[in-house]
């Protein structure tokens, strides 16, 4: 086991530097940059400052959802209820705001606050139920979250009668979507806060450490005395709360409570996390992976929109990319 020379000479040759960059950060940042440049060559409007901000905002929503999904994936599960939970939070939050405004017109701040509280509460409740079913009753996460998907969809449709909840206060959209702080759009700030929280939990808390161990080997976690049931359940709670935050931001963007808001977002959130590099086998994945994945998916879809690729074809491409990403992940572990 003679030690090899450490990689000191970064940048001696461009190719070597590239290889080392890939080893350190993965190939994804480079691919994203190339995609960004490539779409710009086809459609110059892609490179406008306006579009850059648009991509940043769009990927913020997705990064929040992918960060939630990351927690479920880390513990060897996944959360299929994400999309319908978004719809439920959107509808429930919207209805509460209208109710409050009806009672006391003009109390916009109170209405928005109540809507947010109810939305987060719905997320929390969903997460607790998911978590308890998976961790305590040991039901397969696929089944649990699939059931929850149906339940959330049912509630969202019943509450709204299937119609969007219109006339939400302008204040909601103004503060949570259009506003900015020193030039940074509010959704981007929200995403940074959520991602920061995720980072601190995963890298600095006992809970996060435990989740990695549970994902890597649940029996070892139990034998080592970790409170694995509690920690496993927490993964689903954190996931759903993050998703609720994302849902409220998305509601603010559309300006109405939408029973179909979450439609494609379950696939997108899993896609972003997996493409970003989170392992489906559990125990491996970082917050930065959620960011990469969100950027990738957003650049891809905004780009395809700009060069007018058909919506259905976009779905097909995303599906293929996800499967390819999982395959690459397997190759990576096989050649370790």
């Amino acid at each position, binding site marked *: *086991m*003679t030690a090899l020379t450490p990689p000191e000479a970064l940048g001696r040759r461009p190719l070597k530097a590239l290889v080392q960059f890939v080893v350190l950060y993965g190939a994804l940042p480079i691919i994203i940059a190339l995609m960004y440049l490539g779409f710009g060559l086809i459609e110059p409007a892609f490179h406008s400052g306006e579009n850059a901000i648009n991509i940043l905002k769009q990927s913020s929503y997705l990064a929040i959802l992918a960060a939630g999904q990351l927690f479920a994936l880390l513990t060897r599960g996944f959360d299929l209820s994400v999309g319908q939970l978004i719809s439920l939070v959107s509808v429930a939050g919207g209805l509460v705001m209208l109710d409050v405004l009806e009672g006391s017109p003009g109390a916009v701040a109170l209405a928005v606050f109540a809507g947010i509280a109810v939305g987060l509460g719905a997320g929390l409740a969903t997460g607790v139920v998911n978590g308890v079913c998976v961790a305590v009753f040991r039901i397969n996460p696929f089944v649990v979250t699939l059931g929850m998907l149906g339940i959330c969809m049912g509630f969202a449709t019943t509450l709204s009668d299937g119609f969007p909840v219109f006339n939400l206060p302008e204040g909601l959209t103004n503060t949570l979507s259009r506003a900015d702080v020193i030039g940074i759009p509010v959704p981007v700030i929200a995403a940074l806060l959520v991602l920061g929280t995720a980072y601190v939990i995963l890298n600095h*808390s*006992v809970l996060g*450490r435990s989740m990695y161990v549970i994902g*890597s080997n649940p029996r070892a976690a139990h034998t*080592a*005395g970790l409170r694995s049931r509690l920690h496993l359940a927490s993964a689903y709670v954190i996931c759903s709360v993050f998703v609720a935050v994302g849902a409220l931001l998305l509601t603010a963007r559309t300006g109405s409570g939408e029973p179909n808001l979450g439609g494609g977002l379950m696939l997108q959130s899993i896609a972003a996390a997996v493409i970003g590099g989170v392992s489906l086998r559990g125990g*491996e994945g970082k917050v930065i992976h959620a960011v990469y994945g969100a950027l990738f998916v957003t650049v891809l879809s905004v780009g395809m929109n700009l060069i007018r690729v058909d919506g259905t074809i976009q779905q097909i491409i995303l599906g293929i990319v996800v499967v390819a990403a999982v395959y690459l992940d397997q190759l990576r572990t096989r050649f*370790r």
Partner: protein
Amino acid sequence: MSETHRDDRAAGAGQDELLLAMAGITKRFPGVVALDDVDFDVRRGEVHVLFGENGAGKSTLINIVAGTYPQDDGTMTFDGRRITHLTPHQSRLAGISPVFQEFSLAPDLTVEENLFLGREQARWGVLRKGAMRTRAREVLHDLGFDLRPGARVGQLMRAQQQMTEIAKALLQDLKLFILDEPTASLTERETNRLFALIERLKGEGVGIIYVSHRINEIRRVGDRVTVLRDGKKIGTVQASNVEETKLVEMMTGRRIDALFPDIAAMAGDAMLDVRNLSTVDGRLSDVSFEVRAGEIVGVAGLVGCGKSELARAVFGLDKFSVGELDVLGERVAHPTPTGMLKRGVCYFPSDRVAEGLALSRPVRENASVAALDLADFTRWRFIRRRQERTAIKRIVEELRVRPPQIERSVDHLSGGNRQKVMLARGLTRDIRVFLFDEPTVGIDVGAKTEVYQFLGELTKRGAAVLLISSELPEVVNLAHRVYVMHEGRIVNHLEGNEITEEAVLASFFGTGADAPSAGAAAG
């Protein structure tokens, strides 16, 4: 057969004498050279032993022969043919059959299903499934292993899984049989069966590569021994006339005089007191024993006698139906791993891959995992990463984990070093009662003495040690008292001078001459 005669044959060994010839094999992993220009060959009908410290490169060499991964350099000739780009599948087809150090069984399938897993389509048509089934039963019976073909592998003891692995490897056409530490958790009886099998295979002209850290085994079954150290070949010697100390010296580069340290008994207060314990699954019935501060208590018995379950029940991994458990004088009604650790009891499972380690996580996280409720490592449920790093670095150096990099993921370590990472757990917090199940599985001779000395240190500090082991010399030489188990019961209790290999073996089959009642044994 004289040595010179043999060597003559080696010199003039034609293509048919030599089954496998490897020359100049080099294999690098990120950061380490696992094999450095190694020559190795196996003749037909010969047992060629690979010997060397943990991380010397033994398993790596085997993996190259088995086609798990390619060598970076060097050539390989098998059965007279030059072999390049070997895949695991081709290697099996060629008649190379490995039993790996870490198991590769599917835990949710039965023994029988595991035996012909992946072979159904490859070598046998669907129609021959019935024949395969008969064959599987035949092989199990042939081996004389006490295994139920319908048992689910996930519920078997480590030793039984080992037998399954061996049986699986025997189901195919054999030219080269590879055994990587096959006896690490087997007891005398199974080991003897295995050796009988090896003799038979030798007679049929099968070549065998055998890896073991047990020197007496090497001399018993080996024809030649090749010693590796740090990925380099140190030399090849005849097994029959090599001195034990010479082997150890070749392996470590230094002399080791006494394998077993003398550990003074200083039995103090009872730290662990178990009375009339039976488990729900019935694998333990009416067991009573105690472990006192400052003593090592051995538990011996055949595979499946319940010795592993003893520790598992105490640690809260197996539910008990009746019985009383006192830890440090306090009654524990419902033991759980979390609670027992808080009370200062730590369990080290025999199966490090299935239950001990999070393989994809770094050494640091695996070492500190049982101490995440302590102020040393955490504050307000947040990890003090600097303290963690310093403490784990120190422990890893103390246990001589190689390479001593705490950020390396555990699946990149050799088997013995993985074991050390698991043992590191016991040094991260103040443990008063140590429950070891096969603590030296896969550990090299040098490291074994270190572990034994470590046990001595523990008892000197006043810890109580329960040592469950299928390696009889270990129990006999280290333990101050020994309980022998048979079919879930304690059938004998030996103390002081009574502890001899013969005495322990005599009660293995439940025929302990004057098996004392359980109550008396504890007293």
